[in-house]
């Protein structure tokens, strides 16, 4: 908007501020259609990776987890339970321990 209007103002020799120029012409919105990129990154293969790949990647990409700091097993368990209880992640109960163990092995506090 600024970019389109300012040259016009210059052409007409109008001494005006961008704010005045902007309010003279109402802004019109244009349709938007985009494709968002996604990641097919899987969790590193090690015991338990099938469980975390199958349960966690529907709602978020793996990079979120891999960017987390090292945390204790207790902290990882709290995260997994938050996903289940607060965000309704449909994780089979038999997979919960496997996922917590996987995360603790991969990114456990030293």
């Amino acid at each position, binding site marked *: 908007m600024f970019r389109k209007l300012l040259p016009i103002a210059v052409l007409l020799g109008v001494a005006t501020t961008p704010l005045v120029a*902007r309010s003279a012409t109402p802004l019109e919105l244009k349709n938007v259609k985009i494709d*968002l990129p996604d990641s097919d990154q899987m969790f590193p293969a090690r015991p338990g990776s099938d469980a975390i790949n*199958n349960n966690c990647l529907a709602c978020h990409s793996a990079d979120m987890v*891999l960017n987390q700091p090292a945390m204790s097993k207790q902290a990882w368990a709290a995260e997994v339970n938050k996903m289940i209880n607060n965000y*309704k992640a449909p994780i089979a109960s038999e997979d919960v321990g496997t996922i917590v163990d996987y995360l603790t092995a991969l990114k456990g506090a030293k």
Partner: protein
Amino acid sequence: MGKAGCAPVNVAESDTRADVMNEPVGRRFEVLCPTPNILEVLMANHGVLHSMITRRRLLAAASAASVALSRPAWAQKMIDLPLPGGPDGRQITTAFPQKGPMILQRTRPPLLETPFEVFDKGTFTPNDQFYVRWHWALIPTDVETDKFTLTVRGHVNQTLTLSLQDILHGLPRVDLPAVNQCSGNSRGFFQPRVPGGEWANGAMGNALWTGVRLKDVLDKAGVKAGAVQVRFKGLDEPVVADAPHFMKSLDIDHARDGEVMIAYAMNGEQLPLVNGFPLRLVVPGWYATYWVKMLNDIEVLDQPDSNYWTKVAYTIPDTPHASIKPGETGVKMIPINRMVPRSFATNIASGGKVNTAAPVTVRGIAFGGDCGVERVDFSIDRGQSWHQTQLGKDEGKYGFRQWQTQLTLPAPGAYNFLVRCTNSNGVAQPEMPNWNPAGFMRNVTESIDIVAV
């Protein structure tokens, strides 16, 4: 660990992507489903998931995932964020439509951080590098302006269904510069570290917001006596059907204060889709969690909002600086609310070298939080003495304000440069960092190590 998945740009893959975008939608889906497809694996291996995630949601997720599900062809270069204990590596991505180079914190749902050097270029953050934060992965990617409507309903005299034309041309227009900052901006610097989006300092930005007053919209509907809060909802949806839709509420008096806006433009242009096109709530001086994106539903409530995102999520300890000791429990929690002052140097990073005994210009940005900037001071003797910087033009009390100073480091060696904003309410940045388990509201006095050579 953070460098996993880094791949060089692959021209052949980029070409494939361009071809695919010209394919009819049905074919595109077929072509782009990789083997094994994450969603197929999920559906085949997981009966529970199959039953709880609807077909529509899966298809929408698959469609949204269509571009680069198979490989990160768009992974280009890396940046190291100075997060204590790491992981510090992040990709710089240019794969998101309408966005320039961004720090990739999470691909889906997108968490994109503004590279910090952007803040040195001026007080307004360009739309294409304004940070991005979504909670749920089902984000509409096709918005037709003549079909979009905003509903105002609930405890009102008259339910409204407003078109974008109604909003752009039927109500007084307002312009307001304001900082939008994630509650968890700088979370990655918390020690001990806490889980969440591991941002450095780039989950913030300042824009000139253009739109209409929320008050005018509420008045048009006619708020009934007894209204207590107003709840805001956008078009994004959770992948799991029974997960809580993202909604936030403001008290009725706040909603009607004449400052809270519904914006249809930022920096003179329509919003990038991932920043909330076509409408976004603007809550000046409050954390960005309240700035609901793709706003399409406003509900006036006659009872306090008990929805998860208002009552449980985004709460802070009711203590000074929202700070507690790690492990401390039994603390009263309240919804996060007003922002607090911050300031940053933008033309020199920690570890930077300057010439000894020569004047050096240091500059940066500051904001007052819920009010303007009164002063920005610096210290090079670990806070024993403070010196006032020169403030740049005041573009509005809720926006960024530039500051600048000249200093001369007398002798070679290591120096610590501290910068501290005091806002117009007299609140200064604290000397010590705060801590809370969610990693919210960091605003410690910033410290930069400089070496004079």
